[in-house]
């Protein structure tokens, strides 16, 4: 029996060593320091959850040989990662924060990439009667929600969507607080799930909603089309002066690629269930 045990121990060790060597081969790719091998793209959960990046990124990787590591976080966190130099390039959607980021010297330059729009989601019963009274007026819709008051689920995570939501509350001249105002502190998908369970209202980007429509049985769009609900995405290469590990060339290659006419066409052609999700709008040189 003791022999059996030593055999097991030996087998375990051989397995680990074998696994380590096997594991090292792919792992090596993510270890090459400072080379052109890869870039870290900090982006919003909406671009990942919508499925867009999975469709367009293979094209970039094939063209440049640069692997893209997508870290999907809220826009606020993505900006913080840029400021600390933890990411090489940002694809985000909070225009005011982006301009501030450039003004503070953290980014090289901001370029338009694409836009879609936000929608106000609500329960089918629509207790705040938004569908009939404020179907295309976000501020008015928010006023109606606060007046009932009806449950509103806020992401409260400094993301682009959260920034927009707070701007709408400000436009409506309301400081949301109370039992009806739920703060999840999580991404769009999770917040939509909570909204669906709580039969509340929330602000969502159209891409994530379209991707999750099937699981959102209790919700529907109650307000859309307001100019205030536009949702522009920008790309920013992080300033290489922040630290010496930023892959500036790779980041620039990514910026050049995403605003190129070919990629813009690719973005425009991406659709879910026949609905295009993003409208490309990069200024062509």
């Amino acid at each position: 029996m003791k022999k059996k045990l030593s055999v097991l121990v030996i087998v375990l060790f051989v397995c680990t060593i074998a696994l380590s060597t096997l594991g090292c081969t792919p792992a090596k790719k993510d270890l090459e320091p400072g080379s052109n091998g890869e870039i870290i793209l900090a982006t919003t959960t909406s671009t990942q959850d919508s499925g867009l990046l999975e469709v367009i990124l293979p094209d970039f990787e094939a063209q440049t040989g640069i692997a893209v590591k997508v870290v999907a976080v809220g826009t606020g966190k993505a900006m913080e990662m840029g400021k600390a130099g933890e990411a090489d390039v940002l694809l985000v959607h909070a225009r005011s924060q982006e301009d501030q980021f450039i003004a503070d010297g953290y980014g090289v330059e901001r370029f338009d990439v694409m836009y879609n729009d936000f929608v106000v989601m609500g329960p089918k019963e629509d207790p705040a009667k938004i569908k009939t009274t404020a179907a295309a007026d976000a501020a008015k819709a928010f006023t109606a929600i606060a007046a009932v008051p009806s449950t509103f689920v806020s992401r409260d995570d400094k993301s682009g969507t959260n920034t927009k939501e707070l701007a709408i509350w400000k436009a409506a001249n309301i400081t949301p607080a109370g039992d009806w105002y739920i703060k999840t502190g999580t991404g769009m998908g999770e917040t939509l799930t909570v909204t669906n369970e709580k039969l509340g209202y929330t602000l969502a980007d159209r891409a994530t909603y379209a991707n999750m429509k099937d699981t959102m049985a209790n919700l529907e769009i109650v307000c859309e089309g307001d100019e205030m609900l536009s949702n522009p995405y920008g790309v920013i290469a992080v300033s290489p002066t922040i630290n010496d590990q930023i892959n500036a060339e790779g980041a620039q290659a990514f910026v050049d690629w995403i605003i190129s006419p070919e990629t813009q066409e690719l973005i425009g052609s991406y659709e879910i269930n026949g609905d295009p999700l993003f409208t490309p709008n990069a200024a062509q040189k």
Partner: protein
Amino acid sequence: MDYILNGFVEAFRLIFSFDPEIIQIVFLSLFVSFSSTIYGALIGVPFGILLGINNFKGKKMVSRFLYTFMSFPPVIIGLFTALFLARSGPFGQFQLMYTSTAMIIAQTILVTPVIMGIVFNHASTSGYEVVQTGKTLGAQRWNILILLVLELKGVIMIALVTGFGRAISEVGAVMIVGGNIRGFTRVMTTFIAMNNNMGQYSVSIAMGLILMTISFITNSILYHFIIGDQNEYRD
């Protein structure tokens, strides 16, 4: 209620479709958690035995710290590891953030106290006798250590299984230091968390079933050896 049933149906379809992405995620999870358990054992077993069999001042304090670290929240370990590995952190130049190596480091920190604590506990209670018996029989220092490992092998196995279980099932640490990057650092638990966020319950259930199956297999293999040994003693 339908979606729960549909989830399970979809889950089995997904498991038997042998999707290469799913397979890659499963293997990465196993690789990361298995490696960290081995590293955790290399540190935890010798130190656990040494601390356990020796009596010294402050031993009670050491045990209290050890038991506290056994229940340290993975997110906190992830957070601290991330602060050290980030580009702006002290080990930034190694570019380890968002790699499988970072996940192994974090999980090793997580499982080492678990393995060390269990070994320490048993070495304290039954190790002393082994040492005395060994000395009576005229064993050298080195022989005593071998004797201890052999006597405690059942406990060491249980420590490994517990450590591995803690590593493969945690999501907090690997989510922070790994970032759930597709093709690089996406493991079973972060995959489940992400799909749950996106409301895709069926894939979450599928991965959950795979995770439980793997835990069951690992435990069966290891317990087979331990219980096999015990049967031998009964004969």
